[in-house]
Structures are given as C-alpha cells and as structure tokens.
C-alpha cells in the first residue's frame, strides 16, 4: 500500500470531537484548519493566545485590521460576543484549565504522552511561544499530524528524542492513518482510516500499540 499524506482527513476527524460550547484553542498551521470542518449544529468558542475569545473567520480581502490578528500573526475577525484581554489573562485561561481542548502540531509524540513540537537542536529553534502552557494547561490535548516524517519514519515514537514541549500531557493523536488514544504508556488505536489497515499501521510504527476489540475502520 502506498502512503499519501492527507491532512484533510486529520482535521475532519478532530472537528468531530467537540461539543456545543467547548472552549478550544487551535495551534498554528494544520490545527487552525480544524475550525473549517465543524459539523453542522456544533458551536464552539475559539480562544486565541494573543488575547481574545470569539475568534472568527478570516476577513474579506480589504477588510483586514492590523490590530486584530491570530496567534500566527494573520488577520482574523472577532465574532459578536467576543472579548479581548491581556496576555496574563490569556495564559491564565490556558494554564488554569479553562480551555477544554487544544489542538497542537507534532514533531514527535510518544506512547507516554510526551510531546516534542518546538525545536530541533542545531536546525530549527523557533521557541515554544504558547505551546508549553497549552500542553500543560488544556483539559484535553489533541495532537494533529501526518503519520510519517518526510524520511518515512513514523512521528509516533516509543520515546521522544527531541527536546520536550511537555511530559505526559497528550491525550489523543490523530494522524492520516488513524485515531489514537494514549493511556498507560501505550497508544490505543481506536479507529483506522480506510484504505489503511491495522496491519499497515502496526508494521510501519515502531511503538507499543494496543488494538482494542472495538477498534473500527472509519471512512471520512
């Protein structure tokens, strides 16, 4: 079977996890796209780490306001009912356990729930920004990533080798192959995404993966 990266399937699956009224923080990059795939009837409140809740869609061309940007510095809008606050309040919300879900990108994630997503020593040192606080503080941490690096190696590991963003903090990993929960030092494969199979995932991922009885194939 040939692997083809499929980012859309990742964000579509994650978007199904939320319930009405959840307070959610979406990381920069792939996680940001989760907001575009919410099921009908589900309304969530998006928090932006740079200081507001009620993050709305990208403005129409020409209507951008340089004083209203998201955590990636890109122009956004505020929904009616939104609110601004300073950075201490913003991270009080994040660290204080008030954010129901955060969705973050991945360099490596391991079966113990350790996440590395902020630097590759000697190569890429962007800094952690708000990622460490989000990983530590959000009630549920979801990581979103293509299953493999460009080299073909799985990003799901037995043990992270890159500097950690946070230890023992990740609850779920959603890749373009499947939906994994992390518990008791193992990945638990809850769903695998057609056309991939359990066997394909197991033989291409060097980590402890449990296959529960109710593990199921899902087409998204």
């Amino acid at each position, binding site marked *: 079977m040939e692997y083809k990266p499929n980012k859309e399937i990742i964000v579509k699956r994650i978007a199904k996890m939320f319930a009405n009224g959840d307070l959610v923080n979406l990381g920069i990059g792939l996680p940001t796209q989760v907001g575009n795939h919410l099921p009908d009837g589900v309304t969530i409140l998006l928090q932006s780490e740079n200081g507001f809740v009620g993050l709305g869609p990208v403005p129409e061309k020409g209507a951008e306001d340089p004083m209203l940007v998201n955590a990636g*510095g890109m122009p956004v809008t505020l929904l009616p009912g939104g609110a*601004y606050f*300073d*950075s201490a309040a*913003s991270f009080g919300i994040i660290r204080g356990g008030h954010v129901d879900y955060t969705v973050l990108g991945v360099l490596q994630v391991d079966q113990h729930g350790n996440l590395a997503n902020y630097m590759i020593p000697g190569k890429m040192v962007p*800094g952690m920004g708000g990622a460490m*606080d989000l990983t530590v503080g959000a009630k549920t941490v979801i990581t979103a990533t293509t299953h493999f690096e460009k080299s073909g190696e799985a990003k799901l590991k037995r043990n992270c080798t890159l500097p950690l963003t946070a230890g023992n903090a990740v609850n779920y990993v959603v890749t373009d192959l499947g939906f994994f929960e992390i518990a008791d030092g193992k990945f638990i494969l809850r769903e695998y995404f057609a056309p991939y199979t359990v066997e394909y995932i197991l033989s291409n991922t060097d980590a402890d993966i449990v296959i529960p009885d109710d593990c199921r194939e899902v087409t998204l």
Partner: protein
Amino acid sequence: MIEKKIISAEEAAGMVKDGDTVMLSGFMACGSPPDILDALCEQETKEMTLICNDTAIYNVKTGDMNGVAPLIHKRQFSRVIVSHIGTNPETQRQMNEGETEVELVPQGTLAEQVRAGGAGLGGILTPTGVGTEVEEGKQVIDIDGKKFLLEKARKGDIALIKAGTADKAGNLTYDKSSRNFGPLMATACETVIVEVDEIVEIGELNPECIVTPGFFVDYLVQTRGTK
C-alpha cells in the same frame, strides 16, 4: 488631574539609554509602537536587553521587516528575552552564532513574570516547563504533590507600549488584539512611554473601560498613524 507630557517619538527614543532593559509590547508587532521603534532604530541605541513576546517578522525572501525586527537586524540588543523567534530568522542566526544572547521563555511564564515584576512579587510558581529544558537551573517546588517551577519576576528600565486611546491623564484603552503585553509592561518599568492613536480630554474615557490607569504612564506619543 495632572496631565501627562506629550512628547515626540524621537524624544521618547532618546530616553532609552545604551544598556537599558526595554519592555516592548506587541505580538508579531501587533501592539508595538511603530514610530518610537523607528526613532530608536535611527538613534542606534546599543547593548539593550529586549523583553518582548517575539522578535517580529523578517521575511528573508522579500527583505520586509516589521516591529522590532529592524533593530534586531542592526544588532541593537545584546540580550533578547522572548517566547518565539520563529518568524525572524535573523534572531535565530544571531543566537546560533553566539552574537546575541537569546533566552526563550514560555509565553504564559513571560506574561506572569512581567505581571509579578509590577505587582511586587518575587516570582511565580508555574507547572509550565516541568520536565523540559526550561526547568534547567531552576528551583522545582512541590505543592501538594504537584511540581512547579519557580520563575523569578522581571522588571525593566523602560516600557515602550502601543495603545488605542489615551486621555491626557494617561489613562489607556487598547485596540483589539494589540493589547497583549501592554497592560502588564506598563506596571513593571521605571519609565513608561505609550504611543497612541488618539489623545482625548480628561473625563472623555469611561472609567469602567480604562485598562491601564494613567498613574502608570509617564509620557504619551501621538502616533503618526502608520499603525
């Protein structure tokens, strides 16, 4: 109510001395004072320490820079304390080649350190960074079975802030997401200079809506409107 002195961006930049610790509001330049930064770049003040969320944006392909990025380019800071340098490859280069000392701090920790600096606290206890490289060299304190890092408070010599509207007493409201570190930094520095879009008469701002009370502010600068 005593009115604050309204000064030019050049006069404001002139108050920053070589070697000063400068707190700069802004998140990828959204909320950084553009005219004061232009003047500070022009005056070539050196050996400063920067405390800011990030070092703004430098686009290598186009050469475009915003916020504090031109000052980074001219190497006006010997030390940079920020949460993120991913959008400014020049900061990364200076760090990797040992030209500038760069300390990366989790954003929530940085915000609380500045708040603590202005609130008379010695520091804060945070779970952020436990078990990571951020923990190195720091005291780990166990509270009811949970580990926290002791992160010391931060203070500065001078705060350079962008706000939306000031009244002549220095009371401030901000403009959308440009608020970020401004209200915190206004409390944590010896001298506080605020560049604003608009200056109104005392009494025109609703006291219920003022974010930074005017007594924190030393000087106001009327922006030229470049945003």
